[in-house]
């Protein structure tokens, strides 16, 4: 009974968000790109991001070991807010360079990652809840888009958690985790057959 009430409350939040238009980001995305500018001003962080991505592919990735050589940056973290299926906001501190998928796992957030970041599934699908933040991300690659095509509950601001890497401008970004119970019950969303 209580659980039911909570989920209805969460559903209402999601409905509201949909109304506020976070689902229609494509039209404005190119107007607000600030990433290029950011790269010119902070080359250090860019390098660190890449290092982290490389080590991700090598598996058994330990962010702290790769960043410890860089002194102060070890402690540089941003806040990412996961929004679960009940609409509950769960803020977590994430080191620059870490992927959203890893950040979720380190913080016991229920986000799958079936293919282990090899771009062979879409189970780490997250929805960037604010267009402004979505526009700060690099464009998804063809390979990411191929998997997003199959993602459950795809929106205009969907991304794969394994491909979104923490960087300073993303501080405060809110990421919704798609949910069957929410989508089936409220949004009237019909999953695509493929």
């Amino acid at each position, binding site marked *: 009974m209580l659980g039911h009430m909570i989920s209805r409350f969460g559903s209402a939040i999601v409905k509201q968000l949909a109304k506020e238009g976070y689902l229609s980001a494509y039209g404005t995305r190119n107007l607000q790109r600030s990433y290029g500018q950011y790269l010119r001003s902070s080359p250090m962080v860019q390098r660190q991001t890449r290092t982290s991505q490389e080590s991700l592919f090598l598996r058994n990735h330990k962010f702290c070991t790769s960043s410890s050589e860089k002194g102060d940056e070890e402690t540089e973290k941003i806040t990412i807010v996961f929004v679960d299926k009940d609409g509950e906001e769960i803020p977590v501190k994430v080191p620059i360079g870490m992927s959203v998928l890893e950040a979720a796992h380190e913080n016991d957030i229920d986000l799958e990652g079936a293919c282990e970041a090899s771009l062979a599934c879409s189970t780490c699908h997250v929805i960037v809840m604010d267009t402004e933040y979505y526009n700060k991300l690099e464009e998804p690659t063809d390979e990411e888009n191929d998997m997003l*095509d199959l993602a459950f509950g795809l929106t205009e601001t969907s991304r794969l958690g394994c491909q979104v890497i923490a960087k300073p401008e993303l501080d405060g970004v809110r990421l919704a985790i798609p949910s*069957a119970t929410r989508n089936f019950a409220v949004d009237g969303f019909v999953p695509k057959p493929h």
Partner: protein
Amino acid sequence: MSRYLARFLVSRYFSSASSRPLHVCIVGSGPAGFYTADKLLKAHGEARIDIIDRLPTPFGLVRSGVAPDHPDTKNAINQFSLVAQHKRCSFYGNVKLGSDLLLSELRDLYHVVVLAYGAESDKDLGIPGERLSGIYSAREFVWWYNGHPDYSSLKPDLKRSDTAVILGQGNVALDVARILLRPTTELASTDIARHALSALEESSIRKVYLIGRRGPVQAALTAKELREVLGIKNLHVRIKETDLNVTPADEEEMKNSRARKRIYELLSKAAAAAGTSEADPDQRELHFVFFRQPDQFLESDERRGQVSGVNLEKTILESVESGKQIAVGTGEFEDLSCSMVLKAIGYKSVPINGLPFDHKKGIVPNVSGRVVSQTSGGISQNEPGLYVCGWLKRGPVGIIGTNLYCAEETVGSISEDIAEGVCTSVKAGSKGLMELLEKRNVKKVDFSGWEKIDAKEKQMGSERNKDREKLVSWEDLLAAAAS
């Protein structure tokens, strides 16, 4: 964060301490079964789960369906293994529902029974000549190259001609086409079954035709798989330019689906590139044939009983409802010669005794995963404690990840029913199952048995520079598990 953690711990504490064990049996250990187990373990601290499977090996289609050249997709096995090793979860392979034990017995033993045994049969075309030799379902062919113990002796003849026809244009069609056409040197290091690799090395198939009733806008394949075949060395993709013409109805379909639009664009790109390639002696061709439906299979004159081709009827699209177009025959026919046909038109679930079944849809009738039966008066009612997940619940569509959401829905229904107090009776659970299996002399394979199979396969694989060399007979699998 700490608030979240505290709330989490409190809910865990109460759910595990406040009630008796909830005995759950999940039938089928593929993605639907494992995701259901995972979600139940997380949601119910009192749940004790047994996952049973008719095979000695777990993981369902991740092991026997996913193509050998898609190792990344199989990473899901790592996650599933963690679930199987959870202290409140057990795996028992080589246990067959319907023969070793009855559904009614399982329902007596467990509070909750979730059927997630997938779709182990095939849809039929229902056209003349379907029983000729040389015609297989794609499922049989896939199980053969993936070393499924029921199909390791299929021995499809790949040397009779240079042409194979695949009916269907979904991802299964594309998988079997790719395995037929990919250079075997690229398959040699995968976990493809040894018997399949040898047969493919000697294969004379150089041309594969993928036949679809509808057009490139409606093709059921996905962009990733299409991009992959477009990238295979020496493989030339052929698409008729005229098939790429789109109607306003097609435009509308693409507007409503970014996936369809991206697939259409990829096919167009492939068609444009096709004209520019040089002929190569070892060239392999993949022909996308749109707007054709099979009318009958042709029998060879020299070898009676053997397929020699397919008679195809041309089709056009008709809009039936908003956004949906179906293919209708035009009465114009043509023959396509080949020595092998693979039907990739869809899987079908198999009913078991005592289970409501919708034969038309090939699924178990259900509402949000709750199995529903019809009373003699025609009124539908819930079957208490009986649930479905995966292909048995929603039909054979979707990818591994689809089961994540499918399981969430089924587990949501289970949780609601538990909250309403439908699972309060005392059940024997695992202990009862063990006694029953013992009494019937069923040689179950538990997860440590699977780990022995796994270790043996990996060791055999390393001797041959492969990821894994699968054990492909029941005998070998059971022997390895018992070693």
